[in-house]
């Protein structure tokens, strides 16, 4: 029964992956889907460290980037026919290089968790990023290196000229990588990673070296980050220092955190949300990084278990069949909350813009008129208080929906 349910989830995952480009079939959509695929593998690999293993890394982009660089070099070798194989296998090369880097760096960085590990990861990240600008024959300096994925043998007639071809390659690897990362959590090494995260000391008294347990997770995490880097190389056909520096490391931390570290699916949700924000929001506003920062802050403060945790909170009500009780309260709170968010965005954007006429949701607003500001500020205040006032009824409804009924208690 449990087996059946699990298989069903994996089949649904495969169908969703394959179905996405049927539904979202524009060029922009396919490009976003490719980014999502890369981000999902990368964020899941990061969570092997932080969520599963309790290792806070500020340098995870190193494994992603190194995998990516080696993959672009492999593309170049294929292009010059030094090697002949389908580019479908490129992510494996990225993965192996990520694993190699993990083996090497993990051999000393996993000695301790906590602050020591975090600082070492930061140091290594800076070191590799700096090296990448120095050793320009491998890293290509500031410009990075580029390849061409259309050489090499075709794969059943597919020549990988289209982004959609890469999407299917990515799908294959995303599915495989996700499956194996999940299965890893179900093995002795994966479970002991949780134990060491919770209590490294006690783990040693049941026969396990905390350091070795961390090392294994670390290497596995490097492997999958490298695979993500390989997918990046295939998708963009170039890679630069930016892809292994601290900013990229920070982004993957955000993805995993916002999605929810405590759940396997959390980083997937985080990867989807952040990719969407990154690619859609950035079209609309120069300030999208600011919004991302605010969202991260709000998540840390109010949703410590991330979006996955938010979804899982509803499990009890779902099982009890009381979820419908929450629909109306959610709307009552949701409407002012959305209006509040919009006015907040409006105020931020109006402060930022230099145009006299600011276009927002089809309205043309005069930013030099004090009336616009007064109205916006008034709306800001009103929606804020409306949202706050509405929280009471939402709370009550929540209690009712989750309350243990009399016959369940006995």
């Amino acid at each position, binding site marked *: 029964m449990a087996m059946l349910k699990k298989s069903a989830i994996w089949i649904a995952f495969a169908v969703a992956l394959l179905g996405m480009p049927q539904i979202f079939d524009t060029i922009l959509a396919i490009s976003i889907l490719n980014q999502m695929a890369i981000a999902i593998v990368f964020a899941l690999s990061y969570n092997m460290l932080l969520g599963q293993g309790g290792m806070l890394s500020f340098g995870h982009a190193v494994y992603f980037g190194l995998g990516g660089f080696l993959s672009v070099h492999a593309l170049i070798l294929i292009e010059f026919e030094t090697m002949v194989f389908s580019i479908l296998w490129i992510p494996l090369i990225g993965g192996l290089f990520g694993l190699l880097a993990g083996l090497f760096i993990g051999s000393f960085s996993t000695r301790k968790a906590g602050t020591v590990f975090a600082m070492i990861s930061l140091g290594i990240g800076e070191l590799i990023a700096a090296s990448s600008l120095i050793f320009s024959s491998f890293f290509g300096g500031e410009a990075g290196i580029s390849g061409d994925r259309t050489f090499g043998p075709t794969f059943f007639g597919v020549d990988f000229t289209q982004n959609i071809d890469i999407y299917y390659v990515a799908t294959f690897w995303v599915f495989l990588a996700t499956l194996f990362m999940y299965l890893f959590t179900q093995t002795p090494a994966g479970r002991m990673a*949780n134990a060491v995260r919770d209590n490294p000391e006690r783990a040693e008294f049941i026969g396990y070296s905390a350091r070795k347990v961390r090392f294994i997770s670390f290497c596995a995490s490097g492997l999958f980050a490298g695979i993500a880097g390989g997918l990046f190389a295939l998708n963009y056909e170039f890679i630069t220092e930016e892809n292994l520096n601290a900013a990229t490391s920070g982004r993957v931390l955000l993805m995993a955190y916002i999605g929810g570290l405590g759940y396997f699916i959390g980083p997937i949700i985080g990867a989807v949300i952040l990719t969407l924000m990154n690619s859609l929001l950035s079209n609309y506003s120069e300030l999208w990084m600011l919004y991302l920062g605010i969202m991260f802050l709000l998540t840390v403060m109010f949703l410590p278990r991330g979006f996955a945790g938010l979804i899982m909170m509803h499990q009890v009500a779902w099982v009890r069949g009381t979820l419908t009780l929450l629909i109306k309260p959610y709307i009552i709170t949701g409407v002012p909350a959305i209006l509040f968010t919009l006015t907040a965005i409006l105020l931020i954007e109006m402060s930022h813009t230099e145009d006299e006429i600011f276009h927002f949701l089809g309205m043309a607003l005069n930013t030099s008129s004090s009336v616009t500001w007064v109205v916006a500020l008034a709306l800001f205040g009103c929606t804020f208080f409306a949202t706050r006032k509405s929280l009471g009824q939402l709370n009550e409804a929540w209690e009712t929906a989750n309350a243990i009924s009399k016959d369940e208690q006995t």
Partner: protein
Amino acid sequence: MTILSLTNVQKNFGETQIIRGVSLDIVEGEKHAIIGPNGAGKSTLFHLISGRYQLTSGNIRFKQDQIENLPPYEIARMGLARSFQVTNIFPRMNVFENVRCALLWSKGYRYSFWHLLGRQRELNDKAMDVLEQIGLKDKALLPSGELGYAQQRALELGIAIASGAELIMLDEPVAGMSHSEAESSVQLIRNITEGKTLVMVEHDMNIVFDVADRISVLVYGEIIATDKPENIRANPKVQEAYLGEVPSA
């Protein structure tokens, strides 16, 4: 036959000498209690034996091997399991996982990343058996951090005994429990250490005299007596150190 042998073990923390030359032989199969006033160094002695602390000097032999200053995991693998005075579990993992993890090494899984735990029938059955023994079967899926105090103590014990180690060391296993909880824990300890060697630190003298074959009295880092319960009770040095805490009948 001696299973555990300490020879002139010393431990200093900075300038302070906490363990001042302890020599002690634990006989295979015996139930050995270590008693002594608070701060005498009982827990420290446990930490030295189990590898948590490094010795300042001395030797410790477990079965045939010198084990002083080995890392805890190597000592544990040789068949020496222990519990802690302060509960030391895996709080975010559920109760079942806590016990299953404690079984992994002894069942030969080592650092395997190719076995799926869900399929390891024998391992899972064994983990459930242990849960049954410690009375936490119906709490199997609860995060262990959410257990009540007595239940966490039971789990602490479960993690220590799961692997079926030959030598089990329990540091105040029933401290802080109610009378009836303590009683059932003692019964449990008796059952699971059947045919094994037990070294136990305990304050409740009734329990000590009830369970132990031999008792060692540790005072200020020195063992002042090791003997059968009735002889310990009659020992004037012990009476002096304990000032009548030892029940006289």
